[in-house]
């Protein structure tokens, strides 16, 4: 665990332990910090459904609240929160996509979630999404799945219904169009 995550873990755990004794202020602070932990976690995994992110944050906060008796004070509280978040995410994906949800990459390393609220990175991602939204689906979806979500070509083909070669062509042509647009904006 890197020092920043370790510091956050210690702070969150102290807040949680205090909250479980019935301290409302500590609990509110804990929930706020948890929400800011959850947003980038879901944003990274739901790039193609940005509208769902805040819903999922709220649903997870509710689950954290309703299941707070399952937190063991000897256990890292961030691992506990992420496990609940992942459970809620899988639940949502399964409900929406049925079988296909099983192919989503939801097993990423937890410790790489350090880059929470860097405004520049967020902005860049938002700009990219605006540009991407202008592409036709046959280019936009392959780029989102392969380049942003990190799925394989085969998985993307299954999810989109495109052929594997169409996915590769979509990524290639789409990136070319994006590059041309970015150059054109300057």
């Amino acid at each position, binding site marked *: 665990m890197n020092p920043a995550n370790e510091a956050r873990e210690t702070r969150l755990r102290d807040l949680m332990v205090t909250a479980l004794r019935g301290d409302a202020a500590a*609990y509110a602070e804990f929930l706020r910090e948890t*929400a800011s932990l959850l947003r980038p976690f879901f944003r990274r995994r739901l790039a193609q459904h940005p509208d769902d992110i805040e819903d999922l944050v*709220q649903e997870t*906060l509710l*689950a954290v*609240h309703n*299941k707070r008796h*399952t937190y063991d004070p000897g256990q890292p509280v961030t691992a506990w929160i992420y496990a609940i978040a992942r*459970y809620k995410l899988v639940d949502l994906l399964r409900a929406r996509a049925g079988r296909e949800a099983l192919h989503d990459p939801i097993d990423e390393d937890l410790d790489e979630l350090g880059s929470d609220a860097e405004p520049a990175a967020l902005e860049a991602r938002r700009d990219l999404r605006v540009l991407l939204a202008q592409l036709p689906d046959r280019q936009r979806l392959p780029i989102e799945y392969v380049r942003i979500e990190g799925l394989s070509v085969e998985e993307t083909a299954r999810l989109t219904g495109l052929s594997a070669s169409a996915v590769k062509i979509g990524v290639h042509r789409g990136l070319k169009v994006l590059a041309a647009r970015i150059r054109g904006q300057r």
Partner: protein
Amino acid sequence: MRTDELIIALSRQTDAIDPSTPLRRLAVASLLGIAAALPLMLWRLGLNPDLASDAQTPMFWVKWGFAATVAAASAVLVIRLARPGVDTRRAAQTVALPLVALWALAGLVLLAAAPAERAPLMMGSSWNTCPFNIALLSLPALVLLLAAVRSLAPTRLRRAGAATGLLAGALGTAVYVLHCPELEAPFLAVWYVLGMLVPVAIGALVGPRILRW
């Protein structure tokens, strides 16, 4: 509702929480499960008439010890599976230990026995009812334990269901021991284990649907 409004609403409900809640709920469900299985055993099967003399033999305590150690190990596993984000590998391996020990003992007994004695050692006199009765006696605990686990937060539902089934099976076995006339390890190694696997299979089957939260 906005997220900060939700947070304010939730932080108003801060009664103190006891972190031993999962253990307490499992303990209550287990005790009630045993309490329900006991009269069921007395009514359907009856107490072993030789219980007093059997209890003088070490094998009686091996039998009971097997049920008790499987129950303890699977209870640890269930509690860990019911807490999000807890590692369960070691607990899962520990569950196999009493099983391996029983099979090793049964193997030794079979090796030492004359070939003609081996089949009777394994089949005893109650092989055709034993697994069914163990499964039956584990059902009350299974229902109560599944409800308890659901009130916690299992995230791997099939595994949690199977582990819950094993705990229920071990508790049912602990009660069945009071009826069972068998005292040979090879018999236990086959039929007791088979009986305990019935609630395991049921738990694994219904877990993904019943344990969702």
